């Protein structure tokens, strides 16, 4: 589905004249506001569900002391694997520094085969390998990538159509909470639940088989 088609559905739902989201004559919402909310919900759904994963391989030098620069479009890590030059792979689990300090007190000073990744205690868009690697290697990274921003220009949305009802209601939920003539907490709450339901369904689809 293209972005304009979804914006038209949103316009019908809030009694705006349908024109692919180009104009919002009631002036309760601006076009930029609606597009911003649409992008926010698309990215939030991707980040929350890991429904669409991108794969990359990052060459890591031992001299970098385990600090890895993440791709600029990184939203969340799906899974990470350390691969040595000889091709031996080690899955890396998420750890924080507290866990690293307790399990392997020398993890910052004594190199070894990385066993975990610490994502949230360094600069943004960086992660740290625990322990720091003892040799150059490759990080096989599966991650959720931030999709290109939607501008209402007739671009195909980066999410399968089946999940777009949830995105639509997520946007509507925010719109109906906007203080103004159309404020409607009841319908807004319904919309927020519809978004949550889509997140839940996605997680069931991805996790329900094992």
């Amino acid at each position, binding site marked *: 589905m293209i972005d304009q088609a979804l914006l038209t559905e949103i316009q019908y739902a*809030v009694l705006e004249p349908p024109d692919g989201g180009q104009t919002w004559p009631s002036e309760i919402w601006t076009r930029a506001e609606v597009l911003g909310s649409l992008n926010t919900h698309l990215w939030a759904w991707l980040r929350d569900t890991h429904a669409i994963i991108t794969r990359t391989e990052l060459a890591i030098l031992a001299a970098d002391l385990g600090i890895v620069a993440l791709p600029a479009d990184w939203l969340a890590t799906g899974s990470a694997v350390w691969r040595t030059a000889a091709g031996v792979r080690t899955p890396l689990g998420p750890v924080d520094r507290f866990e690293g300090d307790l399990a392997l007190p020398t993890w910052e000073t004594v190199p070894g085969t990385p066993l975990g990744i610490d994502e949230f205690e360094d600069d943004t868009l960086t992660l740290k390998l625990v322990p720091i690697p003892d040799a150059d290697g490759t990080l096989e990274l599966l991650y959720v990538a931030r999709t290109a921003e939607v501008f209402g220009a007739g671009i195909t949305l980066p999410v399968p159509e089946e999940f777009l009802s949830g995105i639509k209601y997520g946007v509507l939920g925010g719109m109906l909470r906007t203080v103004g003539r159309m404020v409607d907490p*009841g319908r807004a709450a319904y919309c927020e639940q519809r978004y949550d339901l889509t997140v839940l369904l996605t997680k*069931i689809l991805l996790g329900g088989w094992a």
Partner: protein
Amino acid sequence: MAYTAISLAQLKVDMTARWDEAVFWTDEEARLAINEGLRDWNLLVGRWSRRIILSTGAGTVEYALPSTLIYGTRLAMAAGLPLHPTSILELDLGRPTWRSETTTSGGAVPTIPTLWAPISLQRIAIWPATVGAGVNNLLVDGVAATPVLVENGDTVDLGEELHDPLLDYALHVAAFKEGGARWAATLPYFQTFLQLAAEENALLKASKAFRRFAGLDRRRDLQPSKAPPTLIDGIAQGLKEGS
């Protein structure tokens, strides 16, 4: 009940027939609401499915599915044996070396792929990887994209038992813009839609969170909470005993 190919025009007529007064939606709104019902139904139960054939790469464990599949539901080798579903977490925890293993690794590693795990909707992994490249040797069953009805003559295959809940749900979608009592009156249609989906898809029924969405979690009714008796309770009891 029988599966029938029903046209968009007929669905629109049937939707109008479900409303007693002058309709409050346009032809295009009806089309969009019906399409929304179809895509939500496909998300809930995976109604439209298809099979694709992949070729395995030498030592490759991860495979991207084509965009014609929304997600995979079952894998089998073309030779006939199915792969059992698992998860990446289980593979990582249970067999950390799985990514490097192939069908000739020996030891406890099977000689054909036996497990598969979803990585994301359109990316899967198999274990063990085939040692050499295979041609059209991996069958993937999955859920296909929902048909989109555009012209009045467009048809969709639907079981007759689904016509009513689908059109009720479309009515609920169309009534959203109205808000108030008119929309609230259609809320049970949405809940019925979810309950029917739970009947078809056991994964949904197994989810406590989904059961709550669908109004299927009735524990509260079976075990109503009881507040301490109040003075008013006492008065009511007294009146009963006096009568």
